[in-house]
């Protein structure tokens, strides 16, 4: 597009263009903003609250960066020992690291310091929780399908890196709680066979805790990880715009369009307003409830430890794995292999990555190479939904394990009983939830089919002239019928015949056989309730009323 032409056509000679237009023209000549704006300003976004979960994450990430910058102005990432003389009486005269003392300084002596600290920390918890829920929304609606697999991985990576950014962040104050967490990580590093001790020395610059880790975690926490995450966030957003947004099925919505509101002005206003709502809500929570009161926890000393030492929630899963794992170890040739710690260290990424890799497994098993922009209703993809629920079940069972002591004290249970429940539950509960979820999905599909064919149960009982009682079913509207029947029901893959049409025998590879078996288990005959067809609908509605 050329600005010269529009100008010639739009403005009369002799009249000066308004200032805003002149600034825009000036910028366009140098940045090409008109063509960018033309391509993007009218981008359509569909309206649904669940599409705003990603916004919650984005805004809480921005809030974390803003408040984090403020905190860096006052925090001293140093482990030099100092004697505290600040305004918090119960710690006066105590020896502590400069990191801890500067965090106390931020909390008690810097104007607004405690509020900003609490906003930073609450926003971090909410950021991770938001990413978890956003990821589950994308998972259960099948929004990760082609062309969005890479963006799914970007999102997963953001969650994964967010966990470690959080961990390095809450370790910075060098308080007794986080120090115990760092000790935990040191233990995990030490459990790595052969190279564990070397790795530990490398990370801590010598024997734990040494005098370096706060400074090292600091640069990782404020520079390395947030830098990578910011890049990923930008890439994530660019891909969202490039792919266009997905939408829920409904009348008028197809794989080729997006029904919604334009970015400008509607979504700009909404998103801008929503940013302030998110900021306001998080600030209110930070003003109401305390988080990580390091002054109560005290400075870190390797000879001290407290009960109830848990990590922030997003690491609670790892804590649970360690807590319930039996303390196995093997001693060979004077070396110890600490399986009680090493096995959880291996399971931790395996479980997390299981959900990340599902889209690729699903694409492989369906053999589906088409693009998908219409979302699935979770019930219409029973195996995927069941897998997601099973994964969440495993995750939350481990969270119970991570907080086993609080379950014990608050519900008057035996700690050992909870630990055994979690040990068994980690294997059994995901399986049970998988089976139950699949059954529930089938039930819901059957209900959809009933609703399409027989209408909605109105609750009105009518007596017919010959004495029979019937319930009146209200037929659905065309829109509702469309929404309930628009989805596709995938067919399982079949093995190609052993002998092709020219009579040449062929052998199916192992991979091929596995793929077909997986496909059958996911999409086989008893995994779907056949949806109501137009013919069935015709037959029923054209005949006699309700039965």
């Amino acid at each position, binding site marked *: 597009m050329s600005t010269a032409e529009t100008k010639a056509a739009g403005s009369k000679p002799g009249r000066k263009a308004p200032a805003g237009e002149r600034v825009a023209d000036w910028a366009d000549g140098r940045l090409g903003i008109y063509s960018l704006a033309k391509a993007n300003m009218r981008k359509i976004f569909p309206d649904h609250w669940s599409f705003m979960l990603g916004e919650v994450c984005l805004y809480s990430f921005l809030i974390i960066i803003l408040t984090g910058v403020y905190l860096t102005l006052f925090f001293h990432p140093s482990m030099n020992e100092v004697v505290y003389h600040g305004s918090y009486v119960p710690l006066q005269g105590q020896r502590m690291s400069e990191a801890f003392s500067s965090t106390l300084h931020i909390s008690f002596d810097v104007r607004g310091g405690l509020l900003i600290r609490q906003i930073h920390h609450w926003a971090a918890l909410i950021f991770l929780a938001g990413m978890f829920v956003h990821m589950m929304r994308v998972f259960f609606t099948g929004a990760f399908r082609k062309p969005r697999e890479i963006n799914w991985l970007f999102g997963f990576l953001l969650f994964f890196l967010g966990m470690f950014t959080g961990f390095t962040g809450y370790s910075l104050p060098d308080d007794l709680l986080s120090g115990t967490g760092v000790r935990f990580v040191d233990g995990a590093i030490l459990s790595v066979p052969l190279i564990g001790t070397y790795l530990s020395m490398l990370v801590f610059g010598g024997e734990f805790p040494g005098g370096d880790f706060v400074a090292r975690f600091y640069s990782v926490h404020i520079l390395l990880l947030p830098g990578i995450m910011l890049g990923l966030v930008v890439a994530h957003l660019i891909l969202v715009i490039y792919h266009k947004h997905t939408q829920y099925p409904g009348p008028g919505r197809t794989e080729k369009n997006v029904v919604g509101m334009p970015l400008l002005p509607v979504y700009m206003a909404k998103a801008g307003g929503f940013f302030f709502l998110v900021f306001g*809500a998080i600030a209110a929570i930070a003003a109401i409830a305390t*988080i990580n009161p390091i002054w109560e926890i005290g400075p870190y000393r390797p000879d001290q430890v407290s009960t109830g030492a848990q990590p922030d929630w997003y690491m609670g899963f790892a804590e649970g794995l360690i807590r319930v794992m039996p303390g196995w170890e093997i001693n060979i040739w004077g070396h110890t292999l600490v399986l009680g710690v090493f096995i959880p260290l291996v399971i931790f990424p395996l479980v997390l990555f299981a959900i990340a890799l599902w889209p690729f497994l699903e694409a492989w098993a369906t053999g589906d190479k088409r693009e998908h922009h219409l979302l699935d209703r979770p019930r219409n993809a029973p195996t995927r939904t069941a897998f997601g629920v099973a994964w969440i079940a495993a995750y939350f069972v481990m969270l119970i394990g991570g907080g086993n002591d609080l379950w014990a004290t608050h519900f008057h249970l035996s700690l050992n009983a909870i630990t055994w429940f979690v040990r068994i539950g980690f294997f059994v509960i995901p399986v049970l939830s998988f089976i139950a979820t699949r059954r529930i999905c089938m039930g819901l599909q059957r209900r959809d089919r009933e609703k399409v064919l027989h209408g909605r149960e109105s609750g009105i009982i009518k007596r017919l002239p010959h004495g029979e009682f019937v319930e009146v079913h209200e037929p659905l509207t065309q829109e509702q019928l469309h929404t309930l029947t628009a989805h596709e029901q995938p067919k399982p893959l079949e093995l190609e015949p052993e002998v092709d049409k020219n009579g040449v025998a062929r052998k199916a590879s192992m991979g091929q056989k596995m793929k077909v078996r997986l496909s059958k288990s996911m999409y086989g005959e008893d995994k779907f309730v056949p949806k109501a067809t137009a013919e069935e609908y015709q037959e029923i509605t054209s005949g006699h009323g309700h039965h």
Partner: protein
Amino acid sequence: MKKLSARRRHPLAAVVVLLFALAVTGGLYAAFAPAESAKADDTAQSLAIEEGKKLYSVGCASCHGTGAQGTSDGPSLVGVGSAAVDFQVRTGRMPMQQQGAQAPRKKPVYTQAETDQLAAYISSLGAGPAVPSKDQYSPDGGDIAKGGELFRTNCAQCHNFTGKGGALSNGKFAPSLEDVDPKHIYEAMQTGPQNMPSFPDTTMSQKNKKDIIAYLDEVNTSKSESPGGLNLGGLGPVSEGLFGWIFGLGALIALAIWVAARTAKAKKS
């Protein structure tokens, strides 16, 4: 004096002197040392022991045995001292409602006077730590910061950073120390009730016990300040995570639903 000097060689003189000496010694003895024990038989102390024994045989003997020698249901109480009795009974832990992993704190059954009688009876069976005096356990004058350090070194493993309590194995637990009477904290440290190790004065000086009590009085009472707002039970990241999920993310999802429900409507022509 002549009479006396004349008779001092009398054969019975030695007997008289002996009788006199015996009378003086006996008199002196009666006047001083044995006087207390002789009197004690009908003083408050022995009455307390008597009363305590009666209370004991009704409320405690079924588990601890008739002579407090212990049975399979309860340990021997010989030598536990009055501090242990005062702690266990006045925090309501004893008498136990039922056998279990641990006796929980509950409303005390015996009054302070009755408890003192029980304590008198138990301490009459054998020496043990005595109930501390007010200037021993009062938090006034304790070093709060030092107490915090001592608490984190010796107590936090089971009782949490600020004494909110924690779990032990098989249903046992370290109770919350919030609003516990300083006297009972002192007695617990002295006697090591239930699953707690004891911290006698040889291990932890009286001064240090006072420091710990001063620290708890500062950070773990219902009147303790929480500069950051609601302390969410003081239990750390688990309650924070729960709060963040329910009220943090919950509020934001509610806001998202609210914003999404208010969309721009196309004008009807």
